[in-house]
C-alpha cells in the first residue's frame, strides 16, 4: 500500500502525460485519467470521475488561454453549442445515478470507435468552399481563421445534427467525467464541416464550461476528493500547457492520425472494462 506522498507523486506524473496527450489531440485529459486511476492506482470510480472532471476544466482553461490568442477558436460557435452541452451534462450527471457503470462504458467505447472511424476517413479539407446554410448564417456561426496564406473564411453546415451530437457529448461528459472532446470534434469537424484546427481549439474552449456544469453537482455529492483531485489537477495542467505549445506547430494530418489512434485504444479499453465489470 502506497503512502499519500508516493501516491500524489505517481498520480501527478501520470496526469502530466495525460494532460499532454489530451491537449495535443483535443480529447482533454479526462479520457486517459479515469482508466489510469481505476486500473493502475485502484481508485474507486466515483473519485476518479470527480478528479477527472476537475482536471478537464484545468486542461481546457489552460490550453484555451493559449489558443484564443492564435485566433483559431470561434466564440459564437462555442457559446451556441454550450447551450446543448451544459444541459446534456446535467442530464448525464443525473442519469449516472440510475445506470450501471459497465453498460455506460460499453456504449461509450462504441462511440469512441465510431468517432475514430469517422475521423480517419479520407476527406477533402474544403469546408470553406461550401455555401453556408440559412440557419448557420442566422446564428452568425460562419467565421475565419489564420492559415499560412492569410485569413481563411469558412461556412458552417449541419447545425441541427451538430447540435444534437453536442447534447450527446454533454451527457457523456456528465456521465463519465470526461470532456467528450472526441464527440465534440466529430460534431464540429464532421457534422458541421468546420475546419479541423478550428474544431479542436473551439472544442477545448467548450470543454471547461461543459465540465463545470456537472462538476458542481459532483462536488455537492462528495465525489471530488482533494487527495485524488490535487495531483491530477496539477499534473494535467502542467501537461496541457506543454501540449498546447506543440499543437500550434503540429500539422493537421499528423494530428488526425494521433487523434484517431488514441481514441481507438481508449474505445477498446472502455468496452473491455465495461464487459468484464471493472467500470
Amino acid at each position, binding site marked *: 500500500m502506497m503512502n499519500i506522498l508516493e501516491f500524489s507523486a505517481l498520480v501527478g506524473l501520470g496526469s502530466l502525460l495525460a494532460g499532454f496527450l489530451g491537449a495535443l489531440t483535443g480529447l482533454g485529459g479526462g479520457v486517459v485519467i479515469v482508466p489510469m486511476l481505476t486500473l493502475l492506482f485502484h481508485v474507486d470510480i466515483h473519485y476518479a470521475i470527480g478528479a477527472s472532471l476537475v482536471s478537464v476544466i484545468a486542461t481546457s482553461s489552460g490550453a484555451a488561454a493559449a489558443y484564443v*490568442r492564435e485566433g483559431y477558436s470561434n466564440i459564437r460557435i462555442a457559446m451556441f453549442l454550450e*447551450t446543448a452541452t*451544459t444541459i446534456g451534462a446535467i442530464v448525464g450527471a443525473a442519469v449516472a445515478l440510475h445506470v450501471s457503470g459497465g453498460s455506460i462504458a460499453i456504449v461509450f467505447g462504441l462511440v469512441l470507435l465510431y468517432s475514430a472511424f469517422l475521423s480517419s476517413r479520407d476527406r477533402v479539407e474544403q469546408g470553406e468552399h461550401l455555401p453556408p446554410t440559412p440557419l448557420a448564417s442566422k446564428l452568425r456561426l460562419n467565421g475565419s481563421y489564420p492559415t499560412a496564406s492569410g485569413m481563411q473564411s469558412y461556412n458552417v453546415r449541419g447545425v441541427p445534427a451538430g447540435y444534437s451530437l453536442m447534447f450527446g457529448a454533454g451527457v457523456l461528459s456528465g456521465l463519465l467525467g470526461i470532456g467528450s472532446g472526441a464527440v465534440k470534434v466529430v460534431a464540429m469537424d464532421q457534422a458541421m464541416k468546420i475546419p479541423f484546427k478550428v474544431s479542436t481549439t473551439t472544442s477545448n474552449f467548450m470543454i471547461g464550461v461543459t465540465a463545470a456544469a456537472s462538476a458542481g453537482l459532483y462536488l455537492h455529492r462528495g465525489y471530488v476528493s482533494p487527495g485524488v483531485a490535487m495531483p491530477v489537477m*496539477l499534473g494535467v495542467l502542467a501537461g496541457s500547457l506543454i501540449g498546447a505549445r506543440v499543437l500550434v506547430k503540429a500539422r493537421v494530418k499528423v494530428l488526425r492520425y494521433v487523434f484517431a489512434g488514441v481514441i481507438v485504444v481508449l474505445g477498446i479499453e472502455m468496452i473491455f472494462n465495461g464487459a468484464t465489470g471493472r467500470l
Partner: protein
Amino acid sequence: MTRRDWGDLEIEIIIGVLLRTGVILAAAVVVLGAVVYLAHYGLTATDYRTFHGDPEFLRSLTGIVRGVLQLDGRAIIQLGLLILIATPVARVAFSAVAFALERDYLYVWVTLFVLAVLLYSLLGSH
C-alpha cells in the same frame, strides 16, 4: 477612449487573460493546500479503493471556508478546485457583457442561458 464596437479579437484576448488568471490562482491555492496536506498526512497510507464520499465539510462553500480558516489542507485544496470550477463560469459571465457591448443581443440571451445552467449546478441545493 473612443466609443466603438468591440471586435471579436479583443474579446478573445480578454477571455484568454481571464482564463489564465483563474487557472493560475486555482493552481497556486491547490499547491498551498497540497503543502499543508502532505506535511500532515504525507506518510499516511492511501485508501481510495472504496467509496465513502467526502466528509460533509468539503461538499459546500461554507464548509470549505470554515475548513480553510482552520488551515485544513484538504479544505484549502478544495477552495482551489472551487476557483477552478468558477473560472469557466466567470468566462461565460464576461462573454454576456462583451456581447452586450457588441450589441449582439441574440448572443447575450444565448450566453445568459448557459450562465443560468452553470449557476444552477454550482449553487443549487442538490
